[in-house]
């Protein structure tokens, strides 16, 4: 019931957002998909995306690419005053390739106003953000979650939570809801995302007086045996395991914990999102798993269902995850911001960058999207939206 009410309010808020956004009533009259010239005097803003679409991290890059593509198609069909010209470059998840990709985007845009969307992964994003800061391009990343991405750069903004932000939110959630008396933590100390959340969680847990009885690490997500770490947590008597890790290792941890009949409460970050759609994954293992994710693909509001349908057409049946939803929201954030700026047609990337920064940090600019409503940005570039904790019940997410 709670879920339905939330979904309804979300849907209402989103529809309101769509209508009150720029373009006004044109949202109700479907325009042809290629609206170049359909809306008289529509200005085209170039959006260049960067992310890994080949290599080990390709699943994340393609999710942000397709998620954004869905939004771009919708936006261009609206017939509003702005159309987006979207392209995506591969960075294979490596910093130096990402910088090359960014430079080829600059070549692609020539003198037209260009906004950088990306990069998907953190380390390349830090490198690219330093370049965009020096060159004055506005940059919005869907998923690079380290605070280093936005630190000391006024032009870089995030759509996702920062890693430390997530760690602090998790500790507070556990404290507020009285979950777990003894807490065990298992994280990947070879991964920036995992270490970032875990460090902040451990520090905040200490402040809040949470009893962390075991802290275990493993070196890489290709590790397949977690029994040592699980046994250490079990021996320490942990009744809640905090797992700020990605879903592939997490699925193994769940299976191995079951084998040794160890059944604490499992609590994860947004990296856990996607586990239920893993091929060959026994969903009963995840029963009761709690995770913080901004997006729920099984939500029933109309905007989510439309998004899921369009996304599946692009992806060949793969369900969107939070990376895709963050990408979708990024496009709407860029679109709605551009609509609020006068005279974009005569601007170069530098003026557009300054105008967008002023708008994003102005305080009055809010975006409603799939991953949150009334999202705003802090001066630092971090996003401010409410973290949502969901619980897996009968193989689907339910708001906890």
């Amino acid at each position: 019931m709670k879920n339905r009410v939330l979904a309804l309010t979300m849907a209402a808020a989103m529809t309101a957002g769509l209508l009150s956004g720029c373009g006004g009533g044109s949202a109700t009259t479907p325009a042809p998909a290629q609206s170049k010239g359909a809306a008289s005097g529509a200005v085209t803003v170039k959006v260049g995306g960067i992310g890994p679409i080949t290599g080990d991290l390709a699943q994340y890059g393609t999710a942000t690419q397709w998620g954004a593509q869905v939004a771009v198609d919708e936006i261009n069909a609206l017939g509003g005053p702005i159309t987006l010209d979207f392209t995506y470059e591969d960075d294979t998840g490596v910093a130096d390739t990402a910088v090359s990709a960014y430079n080829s985007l600059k070549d692609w845009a020539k003198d037209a106003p260009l906004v950088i969307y990306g990069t998907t992964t953190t380390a390349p994003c830090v490198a690219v953000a330093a370049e965009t800061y020096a060159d004055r391009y506005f940059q919005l990343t869907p998923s690079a979650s380290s605070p280093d991405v936005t630190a000391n750069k006024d032009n870089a903004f995030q759509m996702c939570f920062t890693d430390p932000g997530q760690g602090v939110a998790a500790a507070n959630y556990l404290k507020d809801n009285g979950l777990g008396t003894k807490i065990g933590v298992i994280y990947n100390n070879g991964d920036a995302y995992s270490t970032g959340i875990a460090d902040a969680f451990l520090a905040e847990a200490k402040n809040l007086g949470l009893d962390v009885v075991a802290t275990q690490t493993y070196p890489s997500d290709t590790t397949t045996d977690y029994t040592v770490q699980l046994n250490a947590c079990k021996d320490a008597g942990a009744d809640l395991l905090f797992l700020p890790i990605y879903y592939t290792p997490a699925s193994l941890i769940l299976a191995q914990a079951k084998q040794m009949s160890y059944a604490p409460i499992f609590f994860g970050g947004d990296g856990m999102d996607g586990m239920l759609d893993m091929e060959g994954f026994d969903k009963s293992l995840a029963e009761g798993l709690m995770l913080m994710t901004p997006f729920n693909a099984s939500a029933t509001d109309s905007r989510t269902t439309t998004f899921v349908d369009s996304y599946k057409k692009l992806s060949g049946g793969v369900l969107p995850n939070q990376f895709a939803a963050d990408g979708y929201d990024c496009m709407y954030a860029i679109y709605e911001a551009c609509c609020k700026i006068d005279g974009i047609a005569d601007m170069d990337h530098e003026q557009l960058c300054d105008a967008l920064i002023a708008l994003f940090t102005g305080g009055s600019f809010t975006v409603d999207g799939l991953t949150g409503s009334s999202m705003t940005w802090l001066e630092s570039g971090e996003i401010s939206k409410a973290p949502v904790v969901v619980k897996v019940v009968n193989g689907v997410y339910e708001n906890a």
Partner: protein
Amino acid sequence: MKKINKNSLNGFINYGIVIAAFVVLQLLLNRGALSNSLQSLLVPTCCYIVMAVSLNLTVGILGELSLGHAGFMSLGAFSGITAAIALQGLIPSPALRLAAALLVGGLVGAIGGVIIGVPVLRLRGDYLAIVTLAFGEIIKNVIMVLYIGVDEKGLHVAMSEAGLHLAEGGVTIVKGPMGAVNVPKLASFTAGFLLILVTLLVVQNLVSSRSGRAIMALRDNRIAAESVGINVTKYKLMAFVTSAALAGAAGALFGLNYSSTVSSKFDFNTSILVLVFVVLGGLGSIRGSVIAAALLYVLPELLRQFKLAEYRMLIYAIILILVMLCTNNPMLKQLMDNTIGKFKKQPAAAEKGGAQ
């Protein structure tokens, strides 16, 4: 006497090629004729040229297969970055600071080369390859848990950020899995060009020296070389450490070209990439390494222009395989020669016009 002349002539041609390429690119740069994409490739290409030439010293000239060359690059990158940030107050000039960072990178690379070289160079062939492979992975994993910070008291090294105990105003330079962030971008194309010249100078002079001949004698027949009194360990180590030092300097330049560098960048794949440059350029051929590294590093970026997106890396791989096949398969070689020969002959024949 003639032989030596030929060698040094070859060396001079190499300098000539590099200097000419630099002058042409610099002219294009000044006229704004280079795309942003190509401009951003200049410095990393220089780094990879140095990597390839230095690996060629180990693989082509010493004749030992090393699969951990990226490990030395990693050592150089992180020590160079650390030096560049730590020396910020002492050396205000960016160019001098870059030079110092490259020296530190080269030095740390050399130390790494000695540490790994002394025990490992007793091994030969596959065993050396396996140990250097493991070495590269060890370096990667050690740096992944390493935290380095600097404050007024000096450098602090720890296994966690809290363990650094930095004083007020201290900066964390390397943050474990996050790598080095907020690195000043000191690297420049000119620095890359100078580093290539230094590398060529060092490697070519070593190769044509008495020591170089001893090294090549070890490659060609170790037992015969030993029997005439060549100190195996000394000369092997000499080549290996020189190679490691140059890789370290290349790593430092590479690290200082990007605002963030993570240790997972310098993994097995990077080692293999450099080895591919060396093998495709021709084992033992310095000029081949320079040209192969330059072309093959730029190639995947050039492929971006043909809107192929996800097929880009696939095409790159196919090109690599084709190059490997064409340069090694005698039948294909014959075929290539014939076709190229035909194309070459036709206009010549037309010019002669019925002389046959």
